[in-house]
């Protein structure tokens, strides 16, 4: 790992100011992606701004039909939360499927969505459940947050502070994990919400996306059978040693059907 200047931030404002002032600075949340990337010398930040000791970024509250998760909340805490399990069981399940137990004890929701790895799980929850991303500057609709591979709507000096999930009527998450890395080869979140049906797919493409054909079909008939005539185009999907684009396309349909079958 190349060396860097270390800053342990005491507040979000101090971290944001440092981030804006240092050109190649990175925020250190759980570090489960950033530190391995730096060890491989694929990233060389001049400064690391550690968010781990900032009070108030950590925690889960469920109130008024909304689950609010602080940006530095660990995956293990979301997975084990009795309140999350009760309000949005699919979200607790998704958190418990990330990485392995030691990784879940460090990794954070804010770090996961700010990094926007194409195979990360949380983007499927943020988009599939119609969540709102709260930053130190504004609120960003989940649909507008993920803009491309490893790209988000975050501006320079902008820091995720929390994610707000509206409690859906029903939701289920299907995941086909890579057996070694546990990243999603394909993950599909299906949710029946007050605003309609949402189907969000991670792992398959360069960035999480909604599947409008499936959403339309499920709006008329919320059953796995409603998806029988629907196919996912393989064009533009990810292709690597783990799965071809065609295989991923097939998994999107299978995954959506299984998720729907779980809650229909």
């Amino acid at each position, binding site marked *: 790992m190349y060396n860097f*200047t270390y800053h342990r931030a005491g507040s979000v404002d101090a971290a944001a100011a440092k981030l804006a002032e240092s050109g190649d600075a990175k925020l250190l949340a759980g570090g489960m992606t950033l530190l391995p990337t730096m060890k491989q010398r694929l990233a060389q930040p001049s400064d690391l701004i550690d968010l781990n000791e900032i009070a108030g970024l950590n925690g889960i509250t469920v109130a008024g039909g909304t689950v609010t998760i602080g940006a530095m909340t660990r995956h293990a805490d979301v997975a084990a939360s009795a309140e999350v399990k009760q309000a949005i069981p699919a979200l607790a399940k998704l958190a418990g499927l990330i990485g392995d137990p030691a990784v879940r004890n460090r990794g954070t929701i804010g770090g996961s969505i700010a990094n926007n790895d194409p195979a990360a799980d949380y983007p499927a929850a943020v988009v599939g459940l119609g969540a709102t991303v709260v930053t130190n500057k504004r609120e960003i609709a989940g649909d507008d947050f993920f803009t491309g591979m490893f790209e988000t709507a975050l501006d320079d000096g902008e820091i995720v502070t929390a994610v707000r999930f509206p409690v859906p009527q029903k939701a289920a998450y299907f995941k086909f994990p890579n057996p070694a890395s546990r990243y999603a080869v394909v993950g599909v979140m299906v949710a029946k919400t007050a605003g309609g049906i949402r189907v969000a797919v991670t792992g398959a493409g360069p960035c999480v996306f909604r599947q409008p054909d499936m959403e339309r079909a499920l709006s008329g008939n919320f059953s796995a059978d409603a998806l029988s005539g629907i196919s996912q185009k393989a064009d533009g999907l990810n292709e690597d040693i783990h799965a071809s684009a065609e295989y991923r396309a097939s998994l999107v349909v299978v995954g959506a059907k299984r998720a729907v079958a779980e809650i229909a």
Partner: protein
Amino acid sequence: MTGFGDFLREFGDSMTVKVTTTVNGKPVSGDVEPNTLLVHFVRENLGLTGTHVGCDTSQCGACTVHFDGRPIKACTILAVQAEGHQVVTIEGIGQPGNLHPMQAAFQENHGLQCGFCTPGMIMAGIGIAERNKGATLSEETIRAELEGNICRCTGYHNIVKSIAAGARDM
């Protein structure tokens, strides 16, 4: 922790600083660079070589330690991040003649072959037992929760037996 203005702690890339933390219940300190990993601090500064580096890529779990009571991979956290936190290594859970129940279970059940992954397996195994306290710990659960610990000898069968036995005795 105050006295650093807006920042609780800052130091530059060519500097070494003294890090003070608690390892196995005792206050310890040592000079590290910003990019020193916790596992290297534990092994090289403190001489606690029971924590192993198997892969250095967060895959294998040989470096598993407890951080504020929870298993984490010591190769994927900076030493400086341990300041103000509690770290427990394999040396901190038991000694020869006074083994932790999980260590004793690995000995009883021959839960090791070459032994390289064993410290991480035991630290992860304690985490599995604690997370599932009060529930029946099935073989399936143990196998699923061991996904972050790799035994290159592939001796999982007895490792799973050991963790089941150790959890019963804890």
